[in-house]
């Protein structure tokens, strides 16, 4: 079997566990709805609408739910020390990493699918006027979070304070991605939409993903093996 099918199998395993219990998806979707409600109270709704703060709300919601979901998803591999079994499996460790990252990206995206329409409805912003660009930047953002997050969530598996340390590690490293995502979303929401700026930031996130994917593939193995 090829690398891709191994990776797909690892990803499908994770997603099947999630589909059967819906634990992470249900709690994170609810959590992101709560974030949206809290934000709509926290930011005054002025006459011009809250459009100015919506990009930031969207990406902080993705950041918060993403890190919690990552931590919880990797906790499942810890409970019966199944991460060790995965790493011992007779497949390239690269496939394990890619599968994990793919499953994480799907999970982060699934939560974003809930958060984005909620933001659009509750704060009455035209998030879907440029749906293609918005979907693209969110997909790329989710991939970036999943790639960098999987490396560190896997490495932190045995660490007692991993729930605290994961955001401590991830947020400084992911700030360029969050800021670029926020700027792309803001450019799409501007009237008239600034597509040139939006595409610049979408490309920025794309390059960020590519560089960190390559880097993660390089270091994943030496980070998770004791």
């Amino acid at each position: 079997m090829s690398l891709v099918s191994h990776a797909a199998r690892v990803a499908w395993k994770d997603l099947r566990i999630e589909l059967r219990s819906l634990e992470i998806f249900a709690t994170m979707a609810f959590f992101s709805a709560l974030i949206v409600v809290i934000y709509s109270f926290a930011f005054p709704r002025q006459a011009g609408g809250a459009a100015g703060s919506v990009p930031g709300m969207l990406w902080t919601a993705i950041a918060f739910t993403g890190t919690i979901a990552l931590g919880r998803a990797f906790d499942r591999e810890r409970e019966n020390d199944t991460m060790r079994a995965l790493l011992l499996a007779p497949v390239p460790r690269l496939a394990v990493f890619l599968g994990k990252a793919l499953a994480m990206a799907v999970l982060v995206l699934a939560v974003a699918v809930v958060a984005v329409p909620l933001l659009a409805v509750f704060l009455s912003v035209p998030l879907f006027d440029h749906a293609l660009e918005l979907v693209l930047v969110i997909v790329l953002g989710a991939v970036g979070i999943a790639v960098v997050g999987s490396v560190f969530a896997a490495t932190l598996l045995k660490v007692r304070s991993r729930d605290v340390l994961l955001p401590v590690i991830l947020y400084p490293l992911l700030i360029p991605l969050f800021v670029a995502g926020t700027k792309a979303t803001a450019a799409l929401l501007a009237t008239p939409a600034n597509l040139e700026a939006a595409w610049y930031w979408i490309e920025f996130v794309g390059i960020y993903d590519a560089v960190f994917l390559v880097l993660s593939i390089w270091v994943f193995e030496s980070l998770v093996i004791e």
Partner: protein
Amino acid sequence: MRKVVVPALAVLAAIGLVASIHAVFFDAPLQYGLDDTGRLNGSSLFFNQKIFYFHVAHAFVLFTAVFVAGVSSIGFLATRDARWDDVASASTDVAVAFGAVVLATGSIWAKAAWDVWWNWEPRLTMSLLLWLILVGYVLVRRFAGPSADRVAAGMAIFGMVGVPFIYAMVGQDSHPASGRNGVVATLGPGMRGAFWLSVATFYVWFAALVLLRISGTRAERELRELRERGLDLGVLS
């Protein structure tokens, strides 16, 4: 060797500090902002420009430290030789202090020049983000338990690779320019010497502190390893 090198570097840095303070405050001319016709344009870059000599020197060291930590972390992951890790850890510890100086001096200058302590200007933001990565590294080292060295090494490498992204993200703004037409390249003749003297001084100081800190991290690691061996043998409980 370290018993000789560290004090020697420290003495060198002390002499350099006195010399650069003299050069900065007595030799280097005051910076005046001039408009096209050669008249003072009311810019506040006068006496407070003196902080530039220390601010930029620390910023240089901060960037160097991020790369020292990143490269030696690559060395650590590739060879699993803990001595690389000592270098990365020591350089980050010291760089946190240097970064704090960069942020503090930058804020003081910003208050004098722009009348705000902090304005999210790109290079301020960039220094802050680098500093946050370093602080995160120190936290990981301290609280990540037995796998702290690997996790921290990963963070140092990812942080180093992220520097160009941070740079591209923050763009350019009202901070005194850098690069070919920047402040450093266009320094007046009387300022150039003082500036590079100051940069050299703080690099020597950084090297002295890192070497000193390496002995500390190495001693801590060896003590930990000894303790683990003692536990394994049942001598310690």
